[in-house]
């Protein structure tokens, strides 16, 4: 079985590297984008199985990335997990309305992040120890 591909969109290189190490260790392929425009280009090029998206980004923030993804027939099927340091209040609802599958607040415990990724990628097969409510995993 080929490895699932995850596109991590975050402007903080430390966050990108941290996620890369963690996700590689869990057998995911990881590709990156550091801003809004690059995220769409990378998505087009690699057609990832999942996107992990920060909200505060240069060149088009996370919401505009979601908007452009959802407007594109091919890209709209890529599930998106928003992972942001911004307040849940307001941002969570807005992100989900814009098409994100769920909202996670930084810093999110590794186990929770991985469980949510498994649930989004493979809702049937995953049997995480803790089942999160995807609409509101907090």
């Amino acid at each position, binding site marked *: 079985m080929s490895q699932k591909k995850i596109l991590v969109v975050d402007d903080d290189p430390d966050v990108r590297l941290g996620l890369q190490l*963690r996700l590689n*260790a869990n057998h995911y392929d990881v590709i990156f984008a550091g801003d809004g425009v690059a995220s769409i280009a990378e998505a087009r090029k690699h057609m990832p199985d999942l996107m992990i998206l920060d909200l505060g980004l240069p060149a088009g923030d996370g919401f505009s990335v979601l908007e452009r993804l959802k407007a594109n027939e091919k890209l709209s099927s890529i599930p998106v997990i928003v992972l942001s*340091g911004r307040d849940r209040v307001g941002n969570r609802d807005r992100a989900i309305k814009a098409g994100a599958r769920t909202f996670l607040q*930084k810093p999110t415990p590794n186990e929770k992040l991985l469980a949510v990724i498994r649930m989004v990628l493979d809702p049937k097969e995953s049997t995480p120890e803790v089942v999160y409510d995807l609409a509101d995993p907090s």
Partner: protein
Amino acid sequence: MRKRALQVLLVEDNAGDARLLREMFSKEPSGSFELSHLTHMREAEARLKAGGVDIALLDMGLPDGHGLETLRRARAAAPDVVMIVLTGMEDEALAAAAMKEGAQDYLIKGQIENRALPRALRHAIERQRMQREAELMRKNEVELRDQFLSHVSHELRSPLTSIYSFSTIIADGLAGETTQQQNEYLQIILRNVRQLQSMIEDLLQVTQAQAHKLTVELESVSLNEAIEYAVDTLRGAAKDKEINLSFQSSARLPSVYADATRVRQVLTILLDNAVKFTPAGGTVKVEAREYEKDGSMMQIEVSDTGCGIGPEPIERIFEHLYQVTDPGHAGRRGLGLGLHIAKDLVTRQGGKIWVTSELEKGSHFFFTLPIFSLAGVIRPILTQEKSAGDSLALITAEVECRDGSPEVPRKTLDVARMVLQQCLRADSDVLLPNIGPLSEHKRFFVVANTKQDGAESIGRRIQSQLRGHHGFQSDNFNFVISHSFLPPLTRDANESMETFAEEVASEVRDQINNVCLQGAI
């Protein structure tokens, strides 16, 4: 700058009263007031909606509008217009109620002096202007501070994320093997990350508490569930320290009239502290019972076998930012906001919070919450003497999503509750708080003290107000409104209002259970 004439709308059906008031204005210099006069509420509403009125003088007994309802309708038609109500001599209570509902002033008929009227009008307008300005300033200030805090917390969370993620990467051996000592030190880093994280959350919470943004919405809350939830949350932390954490309740506790989220939050704060300050092998216990000093309250107790609190700090422990600075117990364990938040939340739910403690033996934190009583909610609308033909109706309003989704968004339900509240007549209708399981919260119940045909008109009013409210993205929701009458009940001469209210409440409960078909309460 020349001031334009103030546009005054007088709504008064009594020709004599109207003439008297008109005469008072005639003595004012021309160009200072322009008076128009209407006799019916329906005309007045249309005139107010059309705009251009600065101030309205409202009689509280019109042919088509009575009491506070007059004021409510006028304010609904034109929320920015200054309202002054005209009441009779015996009606000071009504005047006071009107002021609470947003009237700027009241004038008692027959006691208005000539010069007093224009002055009252000018003052009322000035007062409203000042209130508006103060409100606006306060709002700007709060908004600025909120923006700042949300920005700061975001900025703090980012570096914290990287500290967390790389510490765990090293600890999990993703960057090569670590020695046992290195691992221990990494756990210290991680413990501090968690502490910093909860400080950031506390900081946001307390600013919200100060801005009274921690909303408290009272409903019937299962105390068993709230306690079990909080105990479950802390179970992991207690187990790590080998602390015996228990909640013993033999029977089903009565429901309390509180906010479920906030009750859990208070319990979590108290339990978190108890676990923190209790040494390994200790005990933390939650108990709940009727409050012995007041049978209408429940008392919840969180006790521990921890280090206890000395007599001086115990006085100040609920204060903002207060911390017990005991070097033996590593003072830096939080921002000292938890108990302050707990006190704020308990007080706003109608309870009180206190603590008893003995050094080295442990602490007992207590708080109280009112027991939910349907009779207590209904009691205010039961009149002392029932007039013939009056009866009690149960009006049910259910919000449905047009797309068939079973979940109605919380925000929509909040707006619906607010709109419903505005449709009711004070003193004769009451909107019941949320009762029963969450899935039932999209149903609202109103008990209306009304004549037979009144229930329908209340239903129609609710329907049209809900439909007209911009809070409902117009076409997404349906409102199903129905009503039924309670069996006629009469109070015996020697029966107390309290007993009678209990009797009515039990009928209401039966009817609601009929509607919900699953014994919700």
